[in-house]
């Protein structure tokens, strides 16, 4: 195989296009530095900052959760939420984005992950919202377990937190379906979307607050969790097919939107287990407690 090489472009379609033929040697601008051959190991390496951030969050939350397991059962639930929001969601989102483009590699996933961690406030706001929502969702279960009276503000806090998570679910369903129908054009009206999210949040806060009037606290929490779980399953039922549809189209960013739908669906699903985990912890601790088995004669 000998040179010189001629390169030319070919444009599909019935339109007349001037496609000049170039001599490769004269066309290419030479840049200093050698490019090493890539292997599967290089693919895994990715951006080292992403690995550091990922491993640091994993280690800190795991160790903190282990240390806090005895005195603060619900702290474990909070750390679990942080882990879900800070590790599980971005990893899942990165993998889903990469899976949305047939030619993307694991290296791209690590770049996306790094971009999520270092990309500024939106991701950390999301983590903060997820953790705060979990804290508020635990307000009623903690009082139930400790057999304390439940003030109205705790009911409101739980309703607000559940509404935040459910708004994320509704948003995920809406944007995933929109991305499947309108591709990249679905991203055009972000201002309108923000207003809709706020209205959606207010609506679900009102609806979830209304649940408390007709049920006892335990049933209220159970009902909210059931709604969140069903909502997140519905979101996955919409987001996953949308992701598959978008994957077969030539799009710029729509696959990231559907990936976001999948990630938020799974995060809300796992966060909705938080109060349940707390109840399980509380039950376990109570059954192990010596005072519970001692009965005065």
């Amino acid at each position, binding site marked *: 195989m000998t040179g010189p090489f001629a390169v*030319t472009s*070919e444009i599909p*379609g019935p339109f*007349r*296009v001037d496609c000049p033929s170039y001599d*490769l040697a004269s066309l290419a601008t*030479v*840049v200093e530095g050698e490019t*090493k051959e890539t292997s599967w190991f290089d693919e895994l390496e990715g951006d080292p900052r992403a690995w550091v951030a990922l491993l640091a969050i994993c280690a800190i939350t795991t160790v903190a959760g282990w240390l806090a397991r005895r005195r603060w059962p619900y702290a474990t639930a909070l750390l679990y939420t942080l882990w879900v929001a800070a590790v599980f969601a971005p990893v899942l989102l990165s993998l889903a984005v990469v899976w949305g483009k047939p030619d993307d590699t694991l290296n791209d996933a690590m770049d996306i992950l790094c971009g999520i961690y270092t990309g500024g406030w939106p991701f950390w706001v999301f983590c903060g919202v997820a953790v705060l929502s979990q804290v508020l969702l635990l307000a009623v279960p903690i009082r139930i377990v400790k057999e304390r009276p439940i003030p109205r503000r705790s009911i409101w806090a739980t309703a607000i937190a559940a509404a935040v998570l459910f708004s994320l679910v509704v948003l995920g369903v809406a944007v995933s379906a929109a991305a499947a129908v309108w591709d990249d054009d679905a991203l055009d009206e972000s201002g309108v979307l923000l207003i809709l999210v706020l209205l959606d949040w207010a609506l679900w806060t009102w609806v979830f607050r209304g649940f408390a009037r007709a049920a006892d606290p335990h049933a209220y929490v159970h009902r909210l969790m059931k709604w969140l779980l069903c909502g997140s399953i519905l979101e996955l039922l919409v987001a996953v097919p949308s992701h598959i549809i978008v994957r077969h189209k030539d799009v710029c960013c729509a696959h990231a939107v559907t990936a976001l739908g999948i990630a938020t669906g799974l995060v809300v699903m796992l966060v909705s287990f938080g109060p349940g985990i707390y109840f399980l912890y509380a039950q376990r601790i109570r059954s192990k407690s010596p005072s519970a088995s001692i009965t005065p004669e």
Partner: protein
Amino acid sequence: MRERIELVLALILLPAAVQAAVEEPQFGRIQIPKDVTIRIRCSLQGDGDPAVLLRGGYNLEGWSIARTDEQGAAWTCDASVPHEKSVFEVAAEGQTQLAIGEPLVSTLTAVKQGSVVTFQHCLEGRLGETISIKRNGERSDAPKLRIRNADGSYDKVLSFEYG
């Protein structure tokens, strides 16, 4: 007698009236305040003959070509004219030529780093328009890159990616 004269006059004037109606452009009137220039959007489809426009400055936002290929697929080529190239003048005398439409201009650039060569492709109009080609309403397949050597022992067609 009077009715006959009116009929004759009508027959004489009718062809002239018809001819005037055909030849005279139907201009409407619009009052524009002094020293104010208005920008008008309109669309014109070329038929090969010169189009008649009022003399003055115009702002060309874009152009498009619609075509059907042999398989019956509907292709559209939409061009957005860059702002700095969008103004053209129509003078009372002479004919304004617009460098729009075909042929489109395809340019390749390449960067060589070590043994890796990265190609970039750009499709523009002759005024530097941004071009969007669609097939049946969907973005058409990405352009191809063909690399050949002189004796033909190496001949490969690669595909670009949008983005």
